[in-house]
């Protein structure tokens, strides 16, 4: 009996063993007839150009008009990336070249139509599982493509919220691809935009996407991180570290320090910022040092009223959450995973640089550091 898993394994084997055999797709062949459940031909279509995280592509917060088919293209890229400032090099697998993949934004009732491309330069089959879609293993069952192939998947965004997507090519490949960086998030906004607990509209001036990633990098006998020539070469060693469940790196946006220094996130006093935070594999607990979550959808699902005034919020592994905050004070803020060992020692720290006027009513240094007074 051919189980799905066996089928995937053989597909995997075939692509590994003889990539030349599948290099056939012409432009004609690459246009498969996607059977639609209903007539979608009258729906308007819109193409979206994705942005590299932490930035998010342009979008309306309140939908203009009725549902549409939103077209995205993502190219899978296996590539070596640097994941810390010590120069540790890592064989990553990425959606569209970044860890995490880009944040996609649509509205409830829209159709997401994704063209997924696996270039010949890659070595492995990949697919995509959208937690926000319904059926077909989140789309994973319909999107497994080998190097040199592409596919188009369409699904209806029926539930508003922030959701993870990730690669899930079967068996032990699933966790490995996910912790190699192959994950991202989609935000399905309510058509009328976000609402607070009283049902009043909530608008944001800026949105940032923070994708948290746990990496498991093998070390050599001297304790130095090992470098590999391709993902396959790293597999056996990496699985051993993975199975210990202790990550060597816990980072935001693909590398320790990717959202600090000159890449620190910018804002100003009075500005309202939406932070979408995803973790496809492991629990995390974002905290804004010196600030709060005014409205937080901890589980990320907008049909539930947001929690208010949070200090720290919990993002379950395999989910994305959303938090809104209006900055009230200028200065530097650290946005961290408040497991502080992971934040400071393993890398899960971002910085906000906020311009504006200081509010003495909220905080004031009454006595600067001075000698301890006697008597």
């Amino acid at each position: 009996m051919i189980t799905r898993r066996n089928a995937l394994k053989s597909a995997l084997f075939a692509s590994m063993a003889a990539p030349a055999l599948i290099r056939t797709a012409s432009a004609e062949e690459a246009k498969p007839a996607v059977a639609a459940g209903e007539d979608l031909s009258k729906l308007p279509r819109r193409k979206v150009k994705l942005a590299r995280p932490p930035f998010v592509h342009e979008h309306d917060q309140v939908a203009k008009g009725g549902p549409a088919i939103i077209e995205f293209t993502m190219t899978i890229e296996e590539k070596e990336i640097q994941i810390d400032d010590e120069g540790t090099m890592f064989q990553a697998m990425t959606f569209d070249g970044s860890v995490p993949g880009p944040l996609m934004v649509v509205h409830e009732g829209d159709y997401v139509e994704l063209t997924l491309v696996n270039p010949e330069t890659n070595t492995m089959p990949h697919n995509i599982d959208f937690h926000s879609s319904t059926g077909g293993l989140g789309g994973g069952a319909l999107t497994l493509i080998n190097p040199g192939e592409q596919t188009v998947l369409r699904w209806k965004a029926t539930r508003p919220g922030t959701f993870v997507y990730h690669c899930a090519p079967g068996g032990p490949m699933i966790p490995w691809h996910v912790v190699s960086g192959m994950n991202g998030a989609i935000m399905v906004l309510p058509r009328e935009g976000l609402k607070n607990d009283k049902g009043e509209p909530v608008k944001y001036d800026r949105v940032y996407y923070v994708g948290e990633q746990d990496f498991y990098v093998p070390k050599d006998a001297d304790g130095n991180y090992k470098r590999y020539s391709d993902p396959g070469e790293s597999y056996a060693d990496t699985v051993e570290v993975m199975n210990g469940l202790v990550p060597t790196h816990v980072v935001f946006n693909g590398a320790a320090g990717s959202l600090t220094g000159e890449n620190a996130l910018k804002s100003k006093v009075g500005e309202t910022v939406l932070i979408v935070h995803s973790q496809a594999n492991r629990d995390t607990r974002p905290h804004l040092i010196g600030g709060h979550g005014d409205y937080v959808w901890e589980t990320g699902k907008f049909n539930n009223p947001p929690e208010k005034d949070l200090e720290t919020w919990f993002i379950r592994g395999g989910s994305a959450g959303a938090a809104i905050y209006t900055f009230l004070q200028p200065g530097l803020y650290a946005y961290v995973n408040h497991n502080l060992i992971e934040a400071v020692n393993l890398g899960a720290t971002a910085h906000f640089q906020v311009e504006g006027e200081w509010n003495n009513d909220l905080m004031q240094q009454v006595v600067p550091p001075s000698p301890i007074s006697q008597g």
Partner: protein
Amino acid sequence: MSASTCIKALMILLCVPAMLPDIARAEASGPTTVMIPAGRFDYRSSGEFLENGYPVDATIEEVVFEEPFEIMRFQVSVGQYEQCVAANACRERLGAGRQPGHLPATGISFRDASDYANWLSEVTGEKWRLPTDKEWAYAAGDRFIDDAIGVEKDTANPARRWIARYSKYASLGSQTDPEIREPGAYGANQFGVHDISGNIWEWTDTCYSRKRLDGEGKLMSETENCGVRIAAGQHRAYISFFIQDAKGGGCSVGAPPEYLGFRLVRERPVGIKAVLHRFRKVFSGPE
């Protein structure tokens, strides 16, 4: 004739090796050094300064070095440090792998650097010690990077200074280099001191201090904390004495040193023991 003049005269007689080329001297006693000439310079003071309670840039003072002093031409190398470890006088460096011995030693705490100085002094019979921040800044010469923030005191908005400092350090941080380079890779300054302000910060003997000034810039009081020492480099870093790797993110926003290493100053031999030791070495030839 004063005592010090007497000693100077004695030194001219006995310190002939100081005139020999570096190589010969290195063989005679310990690491290669450079002579920093006597002179004066404008010194951006170390420590944090408060003026009427508000943070300001450190004051600049004119510092005079009446005497030349000797400082290592290169940072202490892996091989040199390993000798101290082998003698059970120094702890293992952090991340001590199979690095080539000629590379500069990193993963060094203030305590490690001090232990090495004590051991080297013991072995050579000379007085080796960490430089003060003042000496380091002077010996850094044209490689010294002023770490003033350059923002006017702002009594209404403390955040302006935080952001300015962050931006300054962030632009420095973007030039960081994770690779430990060959000695000499960062070049020499006008004195021939190599690799100043590269990616390895160097421990100094100077303690953290906070100085409180009045409106006229007069020092009112000072707090010193010798649990925290200055590591000098692209900017001053204030680091606890037991830390071997200062990297990290979190609340302490800014650019931490890439690596921690050190170089030492050799004091001019004054004790009779040192003089005799040196005398013996000169006449017995290289060991």
